[in-house]
């Protein structure tokens, strides 16, 4: 867990200490001189707190890096010319002495890119270009540049602010047929692309008479080649042909979840939604680049997220009414559902003993401050309120209590996710052994739940701590990669 404020105010980093003593240069014998020259003696820090509050303490560098007054590149400040701005760079045709040169390069880029795609050159083939387009231009999200609106089918707008020679090219533009892999090859390709674009895991559900019931009621099927939307009429239409739901698991920061009440909503929780939308946009652009249709894939979704998550085997239905993944526990923000006509090999639902474990565990229910989570031993047929739907034998939560607590002025909350025994970092091998036991037999479930408490997992953290108290360099980027910690 994070260091406490108290600890921060009573210690000093090794490097800062060495630096201040002048030992950092390796001249131990000159320590006294360094001590004096460093200013400790002259300026006289009153205590460690004051020393740590000095500008020197603001940014920690590796011990082999020293700060210098002038950069290592020589700069002539007297005669330095002020550069006008990005419009003067060679990305702007007007910056070229002969704009035709720019056009020639532009045309060469198109010709060589087309040739590589047509010849299926490894690394420069159709799927590579599609992934490049998705990752490069998928930032448009669902607002602003509006590059791939969620119900655009294969239509994607060009970004008026920026244009790359082969931006949003389709197989037709390249002069090749659309990507033609087997369903298994397509699934494998999508999983690879999905991990690169920001999904933890990915599963596929064929839309049939059963699974179509997981879509929102406003979505209809018509005998059209491409889907369309009449937003003002709240009418969304999918083509009546073979379609699959791509179910992408979007992770959230487990590292940030340790600050459950104070920072979760600020970063872990909400940032995952913004990443999810960028991811969904990338996936739409990727599918378009392969020559296929994409619908939905935004956080408005096209249907029940948990339902599609369960049917695609991304997890099991848990006590808190949310998806519990065997790998990530409940620490997933959402399952992004994108509908496509790219043929895919379906993934089956899973049984990792999770729902059975939920019958015994009840930890999320015990820790829920609003009392929204059911404490019934067994799942039940519910969905009797207007904001729920019948048809699932599960633990229906009192979502009014949850929303009232979470959004009603009380501190924001993700406790049910944080305390779940399946929500763990994956460093310790012992977690896999425990999950092996849960997946094999339910006889040890009560003991495992007890041990989870004894070992201190899922306890309410010290609420006086927030991420603001940490060394910025100890914070994982996006809160996701904690290898820096």
């Amino acid at each position, binding site marked *: 867990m994070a260091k406490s404020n108290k600890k921060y105010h009573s210690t000093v980093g090794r490097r800062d200490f060495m630096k201040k003593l002048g030992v950092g240069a390796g001249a131990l014998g000159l320590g006294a001189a360094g001590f004096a020259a460093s200013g400790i003696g002259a300026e006289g820090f009153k205590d460690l707190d004051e020393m740590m509050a000095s500008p020197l303490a603001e940014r920690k560098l590796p011990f082999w890096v020293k700060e210098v007054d002038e950069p290592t590149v020589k700069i002539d400040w007297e005669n330095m010319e002020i550069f006008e701005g990005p419009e003067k760079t060679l990305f702007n045709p007007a910056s070229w002495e002969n704009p035709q040169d720019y056009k020639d390069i532009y045309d060469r880029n198109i010709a060589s890119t087309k040739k590589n795609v047509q010849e299926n050159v490894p690394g420069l083939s159709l799927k590579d270009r599609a992934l490049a387009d998705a990752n490069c231009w998928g930032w448009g999200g669902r607002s602003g540049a509006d590059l791939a609106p969620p119900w655009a089918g294969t239509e994607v707008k060009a970004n008026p602010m920026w244009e790359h020679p082969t931006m949003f090219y389709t197989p037709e533009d390249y002069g090749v047929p659309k990507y033609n892999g087997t369903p298994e090859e397509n699934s494998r390709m999508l999983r690879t692309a999905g991990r690169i674009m920001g999904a933890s895991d990915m599963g596929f559900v064929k839309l049939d008479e059963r699974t179509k019931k997981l879509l929102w009621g406003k979505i209809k099927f018509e005998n059209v080649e491409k889907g369309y939307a009449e937003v003002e009429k709240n009418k969304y239409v999918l083509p009546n042909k073979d379609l699959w739901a791509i179910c992408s698991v979007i992770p959230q920061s487990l*590292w940030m979840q340790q600050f459950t009440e104070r920072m979760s909503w600020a970063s872990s929780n909400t940032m995952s939604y913004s990443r999810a939308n960028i991811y969904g946009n990338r996936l739409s652009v990727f599918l378009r680049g392969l020559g296929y249709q994409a619908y939905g894939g935004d956080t408005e979704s096209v249907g029940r997220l948990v339902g599609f998550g369960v049917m695609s085997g991304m997890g099991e239905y848990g006590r808190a009414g949310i998806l519990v993944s065997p790998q990530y526990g409940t620490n997933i923000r959402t399952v992004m559902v994108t509908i496509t006509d790219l043929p895919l090999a379906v993934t089956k639902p899973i049984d990792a003993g999770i729902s059975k474990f939920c019958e015994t565990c009840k930890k999320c229910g015990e820790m829920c401050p609003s009392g929204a989570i059911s404490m019934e031993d067994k799942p039940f047929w519910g969905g009797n309120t207007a904001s729920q739907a019948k048809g699932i034998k599960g633990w229906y939560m009192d979502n009014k209590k949850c929303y009232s607590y979470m959004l009603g002025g009380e501190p924001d909350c993700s406790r049910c996710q944080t305390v779940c025994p399946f929500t763990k970092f994956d*460093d*310790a091998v*012992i977690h896999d052994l425990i999950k092996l036991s849960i997946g094999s037999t339910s006889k040890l479930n009560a003991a495992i739940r007890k041990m989870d408490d004894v*070992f*201190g*997992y899922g306890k309410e953290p010290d609420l006086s701590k927030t991420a603001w108290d940490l060394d910025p360099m100890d914070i994982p980027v996006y809160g996701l990669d904690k290898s820096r910690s």
Partner: protein
Amino acid sequence: MRLISWIWFWYVLVGFIMGGGAVLIWHILKSVHLKLVWYEWILMILVYFVFMLMCQTFIASFQEFEPKAAWFSLIFMGIPVLIMGVVLFRSLRKRYTKKQVD
């Protein structure tokens, strides 16, 4: 959590302990002309695996910001390691004593 920056050090330390322990056991057994019997082999392998699991859990739990879990793993896995170690030692001593008498 500066400990994690030095994670390699802890695994080097575990390696030294295990390597040193193996050499020591081999040396002692050789000097007293004792060979392990099958159940002692099983015990020794069990001690090895549980000890390694304990070390991994201890170090990794700090990486996971779970210090309490780290210390409890020492207790819950260390005690079985100790018990098995004592059983193994007593078995070897018993056989050595019997050999001396014979």
